[in-house]
């Protein structure tokens, strides 16, 4: 082990409510995170995800519900352990590095005096050797992010919270940093909660994803389940692009405008079937469709297709595939797909 093992603890938020005046920014949110687990809170802006994170960190008071860390209540209407006594690390969206302190001094900030060895070790771990004497503004965005994470990890927090950790990075750096962050978190065995609006970040980094909407957690699932078997139409839209087709389910299969499809969960009666654009196979699958437009996207191409009787829809195909407007194909679905019973 490169770093000393930290002491990961479980986190439990039950019925948490945070109010700003009359606005309920968080409205009865539930979230369980096991010790050593990485959970992503995925939501649009304004869904209350950052506010929930700040309540866990100790920067917002709750109006109802409670937050436990390691089984002990740290926040409720009657209890509020001050932020600095929670041993909860927080990585800020803009990193909040102290501009008046060097990189080494930033990392050492939460450590007792005489922790130079740990600072050196962390700098090495973050591949920041030789940069300890620089000031934050002299670093690149990726380096700043690493300093922010290392600074939070330095005092061995019980939980690490990350607020939109990748939003300030460009696409190439983002991927690398995601990998690096996960490696560091796994190596430290941290309990971590990261807040993001980016589904790819959430999918790639987290053990489980908590989908947040209008101040509530509407679903918690593994990334694969959220993608393949979302529990509701709402959460289906969070994991990837979603399009729904009308259908009639007969147990393991359903009849749809795109032909008979296998269902991932048995259902009977009228339903809406989730068929993501990348689930549609083209050529020789039985349902005739016409290409309306083709949009080249590099690795993929996006085809807007039309089938008589339903609105136009999208299929994602490899970009090398020859397809022009007005070409016709026979399309179909090869994947077991989820269906949701039509209300009424």
């Amino acid at each position, binding site marked *: 082990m490169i770093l000393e093992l930290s002491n990961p603890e479980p986190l439990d938020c039950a019925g948490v409510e945070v*109010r*700003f*005046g*009359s606005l309920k920014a968080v409205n009865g949110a539930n979230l369980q995170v096991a010790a050593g687990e990485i959970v992503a809170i995925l939501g649009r802006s304004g869904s209350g995800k950052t506010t929930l994170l700040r309540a866990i*960190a*100790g*920067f*917002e*008071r709750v109006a109802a519900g409670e937050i436990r860390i390691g089984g002990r209540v740290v926040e409720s209407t009657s209890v509020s352990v*001050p*932020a*600095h*006594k929670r*041993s*909860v*690390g*927080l990585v*800020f969206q*803009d990193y*909040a*590095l*102290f*501009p*008046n302190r060097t990189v080494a001094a930033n990392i050492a*900030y*939460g450590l007792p005096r005489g922790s130079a060895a740990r600072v050196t070790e962390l700098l090495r771990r973050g591949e920041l050797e030789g940069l300890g004497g620089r000031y934050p503004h002299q670093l690149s965005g990726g380096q700043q992010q690493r300093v922010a994470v290392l*600074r*939070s990890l*330095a*005092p061995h*927090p019980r939980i690490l*919270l990350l607020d939109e950790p990748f939003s300030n990075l460009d696409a190439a750096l983002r991927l690398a940093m995601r990998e690096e962050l996960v490696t560091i978190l796994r190596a430290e065995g941290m309990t971590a909660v990261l807040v993001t609006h980016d589904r790819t970040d959430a999918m790639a980094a987290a053990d489980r994803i908590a989908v947040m909407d209008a101040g509530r957690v509407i679903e918690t699932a593994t990334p694969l389940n959220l993608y393949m078997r979302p529990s509701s139409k709402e959460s289906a839209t969070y994991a990837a692009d979603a399009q729904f087709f009308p259908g009639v389910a007969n147990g393991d299969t359903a009849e749809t405008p795109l032909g008979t499809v296998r269902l991932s969960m048995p259902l009977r009666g009228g339903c809406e079937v989730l068929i993501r654009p990348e689930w549609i196979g083209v050529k020789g699958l039985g349902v005739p469709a016409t290409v309306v437009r083709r949009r080249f996207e590099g690795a993929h191409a996006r085809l807007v297709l039309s089938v008589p009787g339903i609105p136009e829809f999208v299929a994602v195909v490899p970009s090398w595939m020859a397809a022009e407007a007005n070409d016709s194909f026979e399309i179909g679905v090869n994947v077991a797909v989820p269906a949701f019973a039509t209300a009424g």
Partner: protein
Amino acid sequence: MNWAALRPARKAPAALWLPGLLAVALTFIPVFYLALRSTEDGWSPWSRAFHTSVPQLLQRSLWLAAVVALFCVAVAVPAAWLTTRADIPARRVWSVLLTVPLAIPSYITALAVVAFLGPKGMLQGWLEPLGVDRLPEVYGFWGAAFTLTCAGYPYVYLVVRAALASADTAEEEASRSLGVSPLRTFFAITLPGLVPALAAGILLSVLYTLSDFGAVSLLNYSTFTRDIFIEYQSSFDRTGAAVLGAILGLVTLLILTSELGVRSWLARGRKRRQAAVRLVPLGRWGVLALAFLSIAVSLALVLPVGVLIYWLINGLRANADFPALAPAVRHSVEMALAGAAITVALAFPVAILSARYGGLLARAAEQAAYVTHALPGLVVALALVFFGIRYATGLYQTVWMLLLAYVILFVPNALSALRGTLVRQPANLEDAAASLGKGPLMAIATVTAPLARPGLAAAFALVFLTIMKELPATLILSPPGYQTLPGLVWSRSTDALYAGAALPALALIAVAAIPVGLLAWKGDIGALES
């Protein structure tokens, strides 16, 4: 009113609200005193005041304050724009020259204005060969307005300059890219963006005018403050003076409340500049710009200092009697250093309270401080005499009493400079410190305070120079035998010993100008934005 917003999200540590409470308590000393004195004869002095002098005084004071504010804006906005955005030569030097008049007390400017611009003043003497027999009357409203503008415009200049130096220029660039001329862009985009800074600057200038005694008395224009002095001087009528003082305090409170409302309404969505500014080339307008700046500096700085030097040289020639300068300089500098240090030390926690925690105490502290700020120094001094002789006999007639008066009078100066700095500091740095296990005080000591250093320095400089200039409280509260520079200037000039007054006056200006001149040179006066 959103009461939930008043409740602080976090409990402020005692180390912050205790100084806050102390600041409120201190600033309430003059308030209690005025309440006590103004009601000791029942309500008849109040009704008498309202039936005789008050309506007229109110009108005269507010009219003067309004016109001075307008003049100050008219001088300060172009000056600030030219010294931050235009390609005039020696921008830094102009910045310093435009700021340094802060160090000149209004009574000295007024003496110089009378001597120079009087109907038969020095200027008339120069124009005599051209057949100018006498200049128009300098006394009265316009003379007072002119003098107070000369002495007071730097307050507005500093605030506007700071706002311009930090404002986001993207909107201006957008306007220019849409084909709008620089001048129209200034009026359509830049000026509206300056409104919050202007509101703050106008408030400072209004408070300055309302509490000024030197200029209005030497130029013969009655305001509340002058009449309060006259009450004491002519009839030793403490009650009458206290009634006027209380009314002045209430008027100030009213102005403050409306100003705070305007400011919070205007403060929405301000951004900070990211990129460096490209200076606007003035071309042939440059000459006009330099002429404008030269006139401003000539009137506010060269005129008073020039007259003082003229008196000094005349006195040297005539072998006039000069006062010993050393003890007065030492006392004034000591008092100004100690007073500024204590004031800033007290204002800093209050500013943190107000910028980070909000809540009623912080608001009370801020507002109470501003109200006492508009009271004449004489009233604050007498309030301290009243309390000192009863409850702090040990401190009475010692320099501590004087320091206390300075703190009460000048906490608002420090507050406005510090609050601006703190509001512009990213608050999440303190959250970051907390998430790393540091308590609030530790976070302030290790993060907030070091980052607020420019603001602390600016507040210190501002209070330092204001104490150097302060006259009425200094006269009343300094221990017997304690010579100060303003005291010397005052005593010599009342005896018409102008040569003897010029020497301490020049020393006063020189010392008071040092810190603020340094700040202006370094550009750190940006921290004065409120």
